[in-house]
């Protein structure tokens, strides 16, 4: 094939994927590494890439310590509570203590943050959210990253990481292809910061046609953060912790501002409050967690799903009261125009005026990601001054592969980071990456031509397959020798839906189903390897996105099978293990896929707590106890108090 090989050598910091995490990394890397070569590889255009491409109407993670609002440990407690205990508290605390400095810089850069005219503080949407006019959030932070980087390679889809052949388990760069020219790009780098995205579109969407693109998370979020790292043998955590979103029906418009700021509320098809009646029954599944405040997102989902399954749907958002206030009505619409225009389009198309008619809600298909209200991602080192030994291996946000760092969706255990927290994680990773280089850890990396050529051949194989077998048939897409990326994606979505707790089965799975799912996914992976065909460079992009989604899904299946409990009813149910089991599963799940054999190994990892669980229970009049060194009830069989200096 005539595609050129373009080598970019002697890179210090390579940022793969420039959403909020990647832009934060590139921006900050320049401050710590004045003399360093900083390169960004982005599969789209950095000005409108990643999950924030469309804009945001709120920054969902802002402490406000400046205004005396929250402390970092308050956010740790909040995120832990929402995730039913399963978080990395060291990483969360670290992100939370830095996040405000990112937001304050955004404001200086021109991002319009709304102010409360009475108090002079930022306009709060909820306890953690501040309201912004964020249509241009992404181009603004992109500009900061572009100024710091030596070069931005737009439209380069990174497919694999390069691994050092001298020292085992050390990264040495990445490879990919340009989706415009088709050229093969080789980036040799001492460190790699993965800022790529989580995974939409691995579950069958509720839509049946064109609307399949109206997924909640961006359709270009192809799980590449996970695909790249899993394939290289990095340890992953909490990949079973998929997320289901309660959203406005079909358009998947966000509900945060509606609940928190506009004070709208939900009711069932008969106009009745329904949530509270499901909570007593939830005690049989999750025990004391039902007493937590605020009620974890998954448990509220459970009430929604149960009410619909009981035949009393649809669930409505009651907007007709709040929308009588013209100011609130305008906010309600701006909220969509700023981040989910299609919800506005849908209401216009169906003549739904929420001032006079309560719109329907739905629960989405599941997503796998690590920056919203869930914490899938790589098992990463925390910061030196906070993390216990088991969470610390030298460099903040470094994965278990030397020199490979993560930010945003890539990092596990840090839910509720959202846009500002992802940007902050990028900054933390960048500082650590420069330190790693200055410590001489990136010296003497050996990447052979054999490795580079091997990857090149793999990348273009789908086009070769198409060329060889295309003319066995007259025309069309039905071919006995290959499937195209869309056909592969359809098969993936169907099997994940049916065997791994998708919307089509009301999020239910069990060990039998998961084992079948693993087997069928294995066949799909085989078909991909030997028989995925791409008729052009655009389809080649889709083929590699599918590859990353398959790798992500495989990890999700293994993790879901490993955790023998129902930890997050409302996100998914293990029908064979319908209880939350704190005796055996108050742990984080960590996996590694052997890059040579493809075999999975899973283990439990301990959870270290910063704040006592007692404080989460309602009524829990906070503040006074919040800062006390916590003493824990003797529920644990093994408990060590370790303070790291």
């Amino acid at each position, binding site marked *: 094939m005539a595609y050129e090989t373009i080598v970019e050598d002697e890179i210090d910091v390579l940022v793969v994927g420039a959403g909020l995490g990647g832009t934060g990394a590139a921006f900050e890397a320049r401050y710590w590494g004045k003399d360093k070569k900083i390169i960004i590889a982005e599969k789209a255009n950095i000005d409108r890439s990643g999950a924030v491409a469309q804009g945001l109407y709120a920054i969902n993670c802002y402490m406000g310590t400046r205004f005396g609002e929250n402390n970092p440990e308050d956010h740790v407690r909040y995120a832990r509570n929402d995730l039913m205990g399963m978080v990395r508290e060291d990483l969360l605390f670290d992100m939370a203590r830095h996040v405000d400095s990112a937001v304050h810089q955004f404001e200086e850069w021109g991002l319009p943050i709304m102010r409360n005219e009475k108090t002079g503080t930022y306009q709060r949407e909820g306890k953690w959210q501040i309201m912004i006019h964020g249509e241009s959030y992404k181009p603004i932070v992109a500009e900061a990253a572009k*100024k710091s980087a030596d070069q931005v390679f737009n439209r380069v889809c990174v497919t694999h990481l390069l691994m050092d052949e001298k020292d085992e388990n050390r990264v040495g760069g990445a490879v990919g292809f340009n989706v415009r020219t088709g050229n093969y790009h080789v980036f040799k780098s001492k460190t790699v910061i993965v800022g790529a995205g989580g995974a939409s579109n691995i579950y069958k969407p509720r839509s049946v046609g064109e609307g399949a693109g109206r997924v909640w998370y961006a359709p*270009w979020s192809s799980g590449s953060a996970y695909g790249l790292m899993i394939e290289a043998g990095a340890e992953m955590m909490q990949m079973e912790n998929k997320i289901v979103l309660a959203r406005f029906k079909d358009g998947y418009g966000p509900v945060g501002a509606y609940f928190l700021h506009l004070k709208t509320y939900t009711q069932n098809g008969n106009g009745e409050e329904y949530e509270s009646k499901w909570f007593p029954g939830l005690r049989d599944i999750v025990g004391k967690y039902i007493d937590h405040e605020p009620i974890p997102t998954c448990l509220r989902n459970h009430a929604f799903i149960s009410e619909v399954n009981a035949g009393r749907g649809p669930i409505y958002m009651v907007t007709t009261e709040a929308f009588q206030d013209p100011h609130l009505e305008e906010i309600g619409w701006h909220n969509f125009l700023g981040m989910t225009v299609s919800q506005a*389009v849908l209401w216009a198309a169906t003549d739904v005026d929420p001032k006079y008619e309560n719109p329907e809600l739905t629960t989405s298909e599941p997503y796998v990601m690590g920056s919203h209200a869930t914490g899938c991602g790589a098992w990463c080192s925390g910061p030196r001054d906070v993390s216990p030994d088991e969470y610390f291996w030298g460099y903040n946000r470094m994965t278990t592969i030397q020199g490979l760092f993560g930010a945003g969706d890539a990092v596990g255990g840090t839910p509720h980071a959202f846009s500002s927290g992802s940007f902050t994680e990028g900054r933390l990773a960048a*500082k650590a990456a420069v330190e790693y280089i200055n410590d001489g850890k990136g010296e003497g990396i050996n990447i052979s031509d054999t490795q580079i050529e091997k990857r090149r051949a793999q990348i273009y194989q789908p086009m070769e397959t198409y060329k060889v077998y295309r003319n066995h048939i007259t025309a069309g897409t039905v071919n006995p020798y290959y499937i195209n990326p869309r056909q592969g994606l359809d098969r993936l979505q169907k099997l994940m839906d049916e065997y791994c707790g998708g919307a089509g089965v009301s999020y239910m799975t069990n060990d039998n189903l998961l084992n079948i799912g693993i087997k069928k996914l294995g066949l799909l992976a085989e078909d991909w390897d030997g028989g995925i065909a791409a008729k052009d460079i655009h389809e080649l992009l889709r083929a590699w996105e599918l590859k990353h989604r398959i790798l992500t899904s495989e990890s999700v299946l293994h993790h879901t099978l490993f955790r023998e409990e129902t930890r997050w009813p409302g996100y998914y149910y293990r029908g064979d293990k319908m209880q939350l089991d704190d005796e055996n599963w108050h742990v984080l799940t960590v996996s590694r896929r052997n890059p040579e054999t493809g075999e999975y190994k899973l283990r439990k990892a301990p959870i270290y707590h910063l704040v006592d669980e007692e404080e989460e229970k309602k009524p829990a009049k906070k503040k006074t106890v919040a800062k006390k060194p916590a003493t824990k009830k003797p529920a644990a069989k093994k408990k060590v108090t370790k303070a790291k200096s």
Partner: protein
Amino acid sequence: MPTYVHMTRCDGCGQCVDICPSDIMHIDTDIRRAYNIEPDMCWECYSCVKACPHNAISVRGYADFAPLGSSVRVRRDEEKGVIAWRIIFRNGKKDWDLIAPITTVPWGEGIPDLNTVEGPADSMRDSQLLYNEPKYVRFDEGGLHTLESNKLVMKEGVYY
């Protein structure tokens, strides 16, 4: 509402191709104009609509759930720092304009170039501080939060 391109307005300049996050706005080689090659991978993010210098791109609601006949259009102006929307309902009963700021400073001028700021001292490298910290955390004289400052102790709470 996947995007579509008006035949008479598009001149094939390729700005939409350049900006589309999903790589689905392509130029048709026969008619030399842009079109959406993969509507079911369109997020309706409006990036191409905003980028088109000829207002040649619109959206029509997704066929599997949105009836025909309404419109949501947009003009984004970096120089004026505003974005203007117009929403028209299918039944025509609602037709309104909504305007929002997109920046508070002249476009792009508020953003620093870290190549030109003074580099960190060694003591800062050894600390947990990031650029502009601790000042930008709270705009006071205090330092970064630590376990010690917040009186926290990391405790192992696992039971196997």
